[in-house]
Each structure stands twice: as structure tokens, then as C-alpha cells.
């Protein structure tokens, strides 16, 4: 009996290791391939001679990218949208989450429903686009002339993130809040001196989600920003992919890199910032993923 037990456990353990090793490597492979292909020579890329490791190493595809103003433009636009977008979304979500966490708030149920309903029913992209066309003039007349600023204030909000913050604020012990009020703290001081420091990890998680969704934002930036010089990096990458044949002509036979290498180099450049912060943000993953099962 004892022996049989060990065998079945051993088999399962071996299967686990083999499966996970293969799966993890497959998850990484496209990224490794992108790096290798970005720095491999023209012939090796065009005839798909690279399997994993680079061949005839060159850095001209990167050099070509870095020497283009459009690229740096797109990069700084993405930074603009990410920084201001995250700050704005966090500002809205913290204030909203704080107000909703208070039991004394009138119509609290209604406001909660107001948020949760948007998770059940989304209008869809066409009505959203038509709404954007219809409200654009209103915002322009309010002084928000810049498309970039409209993207910052309009996009990137999710009801889930506000609910996450609300739940974190609800878990702050009321004794501490009462003590602060007795000491004469105003509403704003209670929020900034008590609630925000005590919910640091949730705020970090939510800020992380905002920042990543802003960095990765593509579709609405493309629709809403009319000036090509103000488009973010994701739109730039996509345009390069769509103008693939132009790239092929540009990387003429005199160059030693292939058109593919330019696209791969772009992809690598766009994921490097995420890879750099990735080790530091890991610990917040579980919190974010488990938030899906959070109660209303």
C-alpha cells in the first residue's frame, strides 16, 4: 500500500515539473525570440535561421530606431499618458472609494449600483465612439482642447479598482478615524493622514493596474488623438507593423538588418520598462487577481 502511494505521487510530480517547465519556456519564448531577431543579421532573420540564439549580431535596427524622432516622440507621449493618466485615475478612484466606504453616505446603495452596473453592461465600442464624437465639442468648449488631455480624463477608469479601494478603506478600524476626528482633523486630513497610509498596499496595487493599462493603451488613443505626433508608442508599433512593406523598402539591400528586426526592436523597447518594474510589483499580483472574487 505504502509503495503504490509513492509511485502515483512521484509520477504526478514528474508530470508537474515537465509540464510547467515546457509551459514556462513557451511563455517566454516569443520574447526571447524577439530579442534575438532584433539583433540578428539580415540574412539570418529573412530566412528564419534563428531559433533561439542571435546570429550575425548587429545593433543597427536599434540604432535606426533610436535615431528616429518619431520613436522618441511616441515614447514621450506614452510617458505623458501613463504619468498623468495614472495620477488622474488614482485621484478619482481614491476620493470615490473613500466616499463610498462611509456608511453615513446617503444613497450609498445607489452609488454602488451605479458603479457595479457598468461591469455588467457596457455600451460597446460603436456607441462609445459616437459618444466621444458627440461630447468632444463640449469638452473643447470647456477648455480641454488637447486630445491627449481628453484621453487622460476619459479613459482608463474601471469600477473594479474603485471597489477595491472602497473595501480597503472599509477595513480601516473606525477607532483610529474617530481618534483623528477628536484631535481636530478635517475630512481631507483624515483621508490623507489615516486612510491612505493604512491602505498603502491596495493603493499600490490599483496604481499598478492603472499604470499598466495606460502604458498598454492603444485603441482609444488611436481613435481620439488626431495629431500623428501625439500618438503613443503602442500606436506607433502598430503603424509600423501595418506599413510593413514600407519598412522592407526602407531597409534596402545595403542595410545589414531586416525589416522584421525593426519591429522586434520596437517591441523590445516597449516592454523593457515593464520588465524593469516587474520584479518590484510581483507581490501585488495575488491581491489584484483575487480581487475578481470580491463581493459587491
Amino acid at each position, binding site marked *: 500500500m505504502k509503495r503504490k502511494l509513492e509511485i502515483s505521487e512521484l509520477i504526478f510530480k514528474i508530470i508537474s515539473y515537465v509540464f510547467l517547465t515546457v509551459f514556462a519556456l513557451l511563455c517566454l519564448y*516569443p520574447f526571447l525570440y524577439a530579442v534575438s531577431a532584433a539583433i540578428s543579421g539580415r540574412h539570418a532573420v529573412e530566412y528564419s535561421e534563428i531559433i533561439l540564439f542571435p546570429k550575425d549580431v548587429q545593433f543597427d535596427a536599434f540604432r535606426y530606431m533610436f535615431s528616429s524622432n518619431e520613436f522618441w516622440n511616441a515614447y514621450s507621449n506614452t510617458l505623458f499618458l501613463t504619468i498623468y493618466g495614472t495620477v488622474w485615475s488614482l485621484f478619482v478612484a481614491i476620493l470615490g472609494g473613500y466616499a463610498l466606504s462611509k456608511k453615513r453616505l446617503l444613497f450609498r446603495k445607489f452609488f454602488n449600483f451605479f458603479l457595479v452596473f457598468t461591469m455588467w453592461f457596457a455600451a460597446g465600442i460603436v456607441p462609445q465612439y459616437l459618444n466621444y464624437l458627440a461630447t468632444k465639442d463640449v469638452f473643447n468648449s470647456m477648455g480641454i482642447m488637447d486630445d491627449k488631455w481628453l484621453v487622460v*480624463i476619459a479613459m482608463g477608469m474601471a469600477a473594479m479598482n474603485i471597489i477595491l479601494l472602497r473595501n480597503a478603506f472599509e477595513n480601516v478600524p473606525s477607532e483610529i478615524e474617530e481618534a483623528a476626528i477628536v484631535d481636530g482633523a478635517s475630512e481631507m486630513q483624515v483621508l490623507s493622514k489615516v486612510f491612505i497610509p493604512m491602505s498603502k498596499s491596495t493603493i499600490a496595487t490599483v496604481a499598478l493596474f492603472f499604470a499598466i493599462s495606460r502604458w498598454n493603451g492603444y485603441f482609444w488613443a488611436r481613435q481620439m488623438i488626431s495629431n500623428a505626433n501625439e500618438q503613443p508608442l503602442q500606436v506607433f508599433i502598430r503603424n509600423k507593423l501595418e506599413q510593413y512593406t514600407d519598412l522592407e523598402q526602407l531597409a534596402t539591400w545595403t542595410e545589414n538588418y531586416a525589416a522584421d528586426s525593426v519591429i522586434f526592436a520596437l517591441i523590445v523597447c516597449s516592454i523593457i520598462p515593464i520588465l524593469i518594474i516587474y520584479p518590484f510589483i510581483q507581490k501585488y499580483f495575488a491581491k489584484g487577481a483575487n480581487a475578481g472574487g470580491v463581493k459587491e
Partner: protein
Amino acid sequence: MISMKSQAGDFLILDKATGTYRENPEQVVRDDVEKHYWLHVGRTILKDWRLYLMLVPTILVFLFWRYLPMYELLGSFKVDDSVKPVADQFFKGFSNFKGLLVGSGTYAELSSNFWRALRNTFLLSFYGLCFGFPMPIILALFFNEIRSDIVRSTYQVFTYLPKFMSTVVMTSLVTMLIKQGASASNTPPGIISQALAGLGLISQEVAQKGLLNNPQFFRAIYQISGIWETAGYDSIVFFAAIIAISPTSYEAAQIDGANKWAQMRYVVLPSILSTIVIMLITRIGSMLSIGYEKVLLLSEGRVAAYQTAEVVSTFSWRIKSNQSGLASAAEMMNNVIGMLLVIGANTIARKASNVSLY
């Protein structure tokens, strides 16, 4: 003398200091709330205005970019094809819906495209349910087998990584890895197409023509890249449920002579069943909200692939510029079915969580 019978319900109470009767403040407040509800609301808000001011940005953001688009959906009742304000065209009837569903005369092609898009939306979600849903559970079971924390978290970090990449990066990588070969310069197709052809899963010609251009492969590409993107990250929830199982449960099963499979069957599965049910129901609820961004990016410009790659949101996106009423009608139907699924799934969840858990 102080009235000994004085209760909150009395309108007048005796004031000790002056010896005269005065209004009972508690009763006045209650009376006020009942008679002048909105006055009470106004006073409460005024007294606590800072709190309500904090809620204003949230309400404005959701009103402008979540609720106003729902109003635009009413454009599905208008007939005019141009992009005009809804109010100018409001309510001309159900002809857009009829056109999409029945599709007689000029609507024939449009209607068949709509039905195709609806079927594709359903099928993409359904296959996602069959193949994409079990994968995170399997991963979580396997993660649990790895005792070394360092090794396990290394594997986990690798598998979470694709989740944080943008849709543009993912679809660009997919496009490049399975790109078509150029017969003129005799360059071969993308590396994965080559590998598949080498394994004999697809023929060399098919690989050369490009898998994304072939409607046969779109669903597989969508599901496999979907697993690549989300399976690792989605496994977190299941893994959390598995590590919450007390070690004594395993020990008890081992003493009873249960081998690994029996332990899976009688210890692990029942413990994570509620998580599986909740996640499954969430998934069914969002069946019709296929990520339009990914589908658009993978299929844009590849007309041949629309056969399987066109979903309702991309269908309406493509017809929006000259048939905005029809586009809204298509989205409206998609959304209403989608919401019925969400509500149905939630109802079942509420009932099932009582039945299946206890």
C-alpha cells in the same frame, strides 16, 4: 417636576433648568425626516458636503464615458445612416433590428454577416470555455506540486509575464511568428509556422500563405494566444484556493490509503470547487464581451479571415461610418444577450453556491 413618563415619543418635555416645557429635539428630527425627506437629504449633504464633493469626479467620469454611451445605443432605433446626434433622429422604429435579424432585400448580405458575427462571438467564447478555462486550474494543481518556493515562484513569474504586455505587443508577436513567407524572394514563413509544418500539423503551402490569412486557423490562434496571455495569471486564484487546504486533509486521506489520484478526487477538487464554480459563472456571464482589440488587431485587413474572425463588436465597428444605426442595433442585441447571461449566471451562482457547497 420632571415628568417620569417622558419618552422620546413625547412632543414636549420638561426642561429641568427653567421648569418649562419645550420641544423634544429627537422627535423634531424624526418628524422632520418623515415629513420633509428631501429637506433632510439637503441638510445632510450640506453638513457633510466634503464627502459628497469627493464623489463628484467619480460620478462625472462614469456618467460621461459609461452611461452617455448607453444613451447613444438608442441610435439603434434611428434610420438615418449618418453620424448624427441621437436626439435628432430619435425613435423611428425597429427597422434596424429587423434588417439585421431577417435581412430581406438590401439587407440580405448585412444580415448574413451579422449572424456570422454572432455565431463567431459565441464560438470564440465557447472554445475559450472548453480550452482556456481548465488551463489555469491545471497549472495551479501543478504549481502545488513544487515544494521549493524559489523554483515555483520562478515558474509563476514566467507564466504571469505575458499578462502585462499590451495587446499590440502580443498581436504583433503573434503576427510576426506566424507571418506568411514571400514566394518572390523565396523567404520562408514565420518560425512557429515552420515548426508546425515540420511537425506535420499543417502543410508547407498553408504555412507559406500565412496562418492569419486562413479562416480555418483563426480560432486556434485566438485560443492558444489567449492561453499564453492569461493562463498563468488566472491560475493565481485557483492556487490560492489550493494552498488554503489544510495539510491534515491530505494526511487523513493518506492514512485511508488514498493515492495521488484519489487525493485529487476527494480532497483537492471538492475544496476548490466553489472557486471553480464562481470563476466559471463569471466567465459564462462575460461570454459575449470578446476583447474587440485583440480580434481587430489580428484580423484587420485580412478579409478572408473574417469568415471566422468577425465578431459582433468588430462587425459594427466596420459598418459604423455609414450605417451607425445598424451598428448600434448590432451592439444593442449583443449587449442585451450579454446582460441576460450575466444576470442568469449570477442567479445560478446564488442558487448553486447553496446547493453545491453544502
